[in-house]
């Protein structure tokens, strides 16, 4: 055993010292990632597509009948589907819009360096770090119709005269879920915009002040244009995340009431894992992926054409 073992270690040492060409070395370094990615992402993705062309049931996944694009056609002609897409866009645009405006405002507030700004900067991180599910649970509890803090507070302040079932009216439920999402995600915008603000050139502001620009003019004419790259990045990341929202819907409303918060990810989940329609679920999830893929393309384009350096 001993000589054999020595030979093996010799061999490994020689391999380590071996002067490889760059391409071979790169291949070795990348290979594990490529294999994992193929197995965990690309193969399942392709498989989802294949499944979406078949009729099959999660209870019997081996039995599959080819149906072509029938599932897609089913959904594309389905009113419920389009309403769900509409709600998903509503959630995405409203929550990302609010987060962006609020996030920039908070970042500006931090950069004003009032007393305690460091504390504020640190505090802002906390909602972002709280797990999504916990965030949903907190707000669901606050909105609770019978014992919730929101009802208690509003009643004690005399703003309402009896408890309100906040999550019962579909449209209001959606807006309240958005509010919970804003609490969790606006800090992300603050973090990125703050970092971008720090690196803005001070000289420009001095020059603008000398030229007599007031605070608002400095903000709209200098700060915002300079923040453009960071804003674009935040916008695309948050849009993608919001479009595939699932966790907070699951914990807060499960798509209800009366489909008021039914978004595309939740619909897919329901179709696949409650009704066990593998084929339809796959078709839906492939439609989601297509949307996200378009957004991702946009993202890559933004990243690589803006020549962003913050």
């Amino acid at each position, binding site marked *: 055993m001993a000589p054999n073992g020595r030979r093996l270690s010799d061999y490994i040492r020689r391999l*380590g010292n071996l*002067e490889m060409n*760059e*391409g071979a070395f*790169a*291949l070795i*370094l*990348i290979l*594990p*990632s490529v294999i*994992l*990615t193929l197995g965990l*992402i690309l193969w*399942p993705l392709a498989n*989802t597509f294949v*499944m979406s062309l078949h009729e099959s049931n999660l209870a019997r996944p081996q039995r599959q009948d080819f149906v072509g694009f029938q599932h897609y056609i089913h959904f594309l002609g389905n009113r419920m589907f389009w309403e769900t897409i509409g709600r998903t866009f509503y959630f995405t645009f409203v929550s990302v819009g609010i987060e962006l405006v609020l996030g920039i405002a908070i970042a500006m*507030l931090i950069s*004003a360096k*009032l007393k305690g700004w460091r504390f*504020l900067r640190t*505090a802002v*991180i*906390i909602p972002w*770090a*709280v*797990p999504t599910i*916990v965030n949903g*649970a907190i707000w669901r509890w*606050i909105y609770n119709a019978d*014992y919730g*803090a929101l009802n*208690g507070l509003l009643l004690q302040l005399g703003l309402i005269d009896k408890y309100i079932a906040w999550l019962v009216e579909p449209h209001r439920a959606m807006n309240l879920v958005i509010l919970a999402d804003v*609490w969790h995600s606006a800090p*992300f915008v603050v*973090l*990125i915009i*703050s*970092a971008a603000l720090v690196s803005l050139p001070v000289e420009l502001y001095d020059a603008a002040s000398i030229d007599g620009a007031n605070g608002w003019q400095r903000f709209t004419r200098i700060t915002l244009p300079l923040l453009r790259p960071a804003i674009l990045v935040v916008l695309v990341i948050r849009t993608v995340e919001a479009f*595939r929202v*699932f*966790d907070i819907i*699951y*914990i807060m409303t499960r798509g209800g009431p009366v489909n008021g918060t039914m978004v595309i*990810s939740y619909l*897919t*989940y329901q179709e*696949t*894992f409650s009704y066990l329609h*593998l084929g339809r679920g796959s078709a839906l*999830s*492939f439609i989601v*992926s297509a949307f*996200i*893929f378009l957004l*991702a*393309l946009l993202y*890559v384009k933004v*990243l690589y054409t803006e020549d*962003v*350096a913050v």
Partner: protein
Amino acid sequence: MSDKAKNFIWRAFLYFCMLILLLLIFAPLAWLFISSISTRAELLSVPPHWWPHEPTLQNYLDILAPTETTSRTARNFRYALTNSIIVSGTVTLVSLIVGSLAAYAFARLRFRFRRSALLAFVSLRMLPAISIVIPLYVVLRGAGLLNTRTALILVYLSFTLPFVIWIMTSFFQSIPMELEDAARVDGCSRLGALWRVIIPVSRPGLVATGVFAFLLAWDEFFFALLFTSTPDAKTVPVAIAEFTGRHAIDFSAQATGGVLAAIPPVILALIFQRYIVQGLTAGAIKG
């Protein structure tokens, strides 16, 4: 109005905003904590007791030191904590190692398809879990891996790995090339230069990325919800969702679980605050 007065009013307004903001940040968290130290009966009082008349740590004891009388859900929460720690920790370690190697190649070596491969990884990060979950479910079930931590670790790599590659590439790019060149002139092999020079220098980047990957894994809910149904592998987010039972919600237990689930990521985020901001911007901005 003089400029001075205007300035004073403006600053007063800003302080007011700051106060409101801090209130909005901390009030929900405070309420979560207060709910966790309230008894079930007190939580159901109308109007709410903003501070419990009889604060109790019983909910925490139920989870951290369960006895025979504790509810099953509370008892299972402890397993969930263990599962979450093991899964998130392992995923972080594996994706850091595997991902950094690839990131190094992307940042430093010239090879064919370098740019397009990197772009592919960047866009893969965007894919929603739902678009890969069904085949993964079928395969894992076939392999008898449902309800195992192994399955979660494997599947979580699908989102931490592209993330690590993405962020570490920009970190490696920010390290001056001369460092490696010097090491190579001194007779280091490529692997040697990577191991002895680049890795030590990029420790801040590795730490930031690692913390980030950990947070991502700790937060994950969707895969865990679908792939686990017993205490053997259920993670914390799933356990918290389960306090919302079919018939009633155990609010105080859910609040306690929420506090325990939030503590590790919040502490990590506060400790590594600076790194996280750096990592976010490096990854998000430079790609």
